[in-house]
């Protein structure tokens, strides 16, 4: 997985590409930990994310908890196969998806 990171004003956009799984989730988690401070908006652009495991979902949930305290978080460009996972796990109800 590669992660593209863009910061504009206080908006952080994270665009992971590939697979967010057991092996790669810690990489995204560490990326977020070092970048979220001071951000009021977090955008996950998931256009190029093809697979997500529970470890990846946990990273999204943790980011949502952080952003609940300091702003908003949104997922955009979610592919159907990822949307399916978000729906069956109930994450589609607790995350904002655009």
């Amino acid at each position, binding site marked *: 997985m590669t992660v593209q990171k863009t910061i504009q004003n206080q908006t952080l956009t994270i665009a992971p590409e590939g697979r967010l799984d*057991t092996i790669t989730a810690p990489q995204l988690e560490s990326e977020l930990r070092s970048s979220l401070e001071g951000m009021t908006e977090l955008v996950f652009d998931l256009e190029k994310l093809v697979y997500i495991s529970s470890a990846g979902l*946990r990273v999204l949930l943790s980011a949502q908890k952080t952003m609940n305290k300091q702003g908003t978080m949104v997922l955009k460009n979610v592919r159907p196969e990822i949307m399916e996972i978000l729906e069956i*796990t109930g994450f589609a109800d607790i995350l904002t998806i655009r």
Partner: protein
Amino acid sequence: MISIRNLSKSYEGNRVWSDVNLEIKDGETVVIIGESGGGKSTLLRCINRLVVPDSGEIWIDGVNILAPGTDINAVRWKMGMVYQHFNLFSHLSVLENIILAPMKVAGMSREDAVKEAKQLLARVGMSGRENAKPSELSGGQKQRVAIARTLAMHPDIILFDEPTSALDPTMVDEVESVIRTLAEDGITGVVVTHDLNFARRVASRVVFLADQSVCEEGTPEEIFDHPVNPKTQRFLYRSRVFERELTPDTLDLYALASEMRAFLRRFETEKRQERFLPVLCDELLYPVLMHPDYPAGSAAIRLLCSETSTRHTLFIRFRGIACDPLSEPYLDKLNLTLLDKFTEFIFSSCKEDGWEVCIQM
């Protein structure tokens, strides 16, 4: 009629097979199966003398093609060969690939060759793709063009060397149906394949090559459903079962998913089942084998694939494990939800030496 008598072949002192005897009648589709490295392709290539055996005879329509003085070109004129990797000329269009041999070798006029090539393309379901380059075609389409090219020389016999090995499973059907129509048209086919489903569907007779000779032969039903020889029985069992022993030290999730995917693709599968493999790794194997406090000592995986349906079954025996792997502290609701989503059913049971998880994929 092809008659193979007491054929033997060695490479640098290593015997490939010896005293092979095989009769292939006109219009039959004979499929040769066997372990990798067992000499299936070597035997096939002896039939058109691309490989010369050490001893024995091969008679084709009353001519011993191994006898000194045999006009091998005349023999080869009756035969076509279809290869695993298609061997199309990449710089030529589909049409040009097909008309090349009829014009250059058979001396046919371009007009006649083009007319016939179009008929052949229609026969293999490729009408309208005359001007496409091979790079613009799928694997299945390339193989159908390769078959059309072979047919352009009007062979009585076609030798197929692993014709579906380089194809996605979705493309096997289209090549299979073309090969079936050839048999219906009376062309004799000799096919080498490791794809046993394909073999079952396309063969009028199956030959199992093992331990340097023909071990068993019969109809697809006889060989696949009621094999008599224990070697055939063992081969068929092994061909349906994928086994791996995993430990926390050697766990490579990507390699495992990739190997299992390659194995599964030899059988009928649904997309959901291929999608399940990374889920299996992420939601079961990793959390149990790599648990920070209570890692399982090992996991023995046994995937049993069905040859007649898409119902494949997976058994995972965890040894050296603290408790039921489908429960806390190993898995939580999120892991189980994802596992449930991609399986027909999943359950665990306590065994003498650990816990076994059974999954119907």
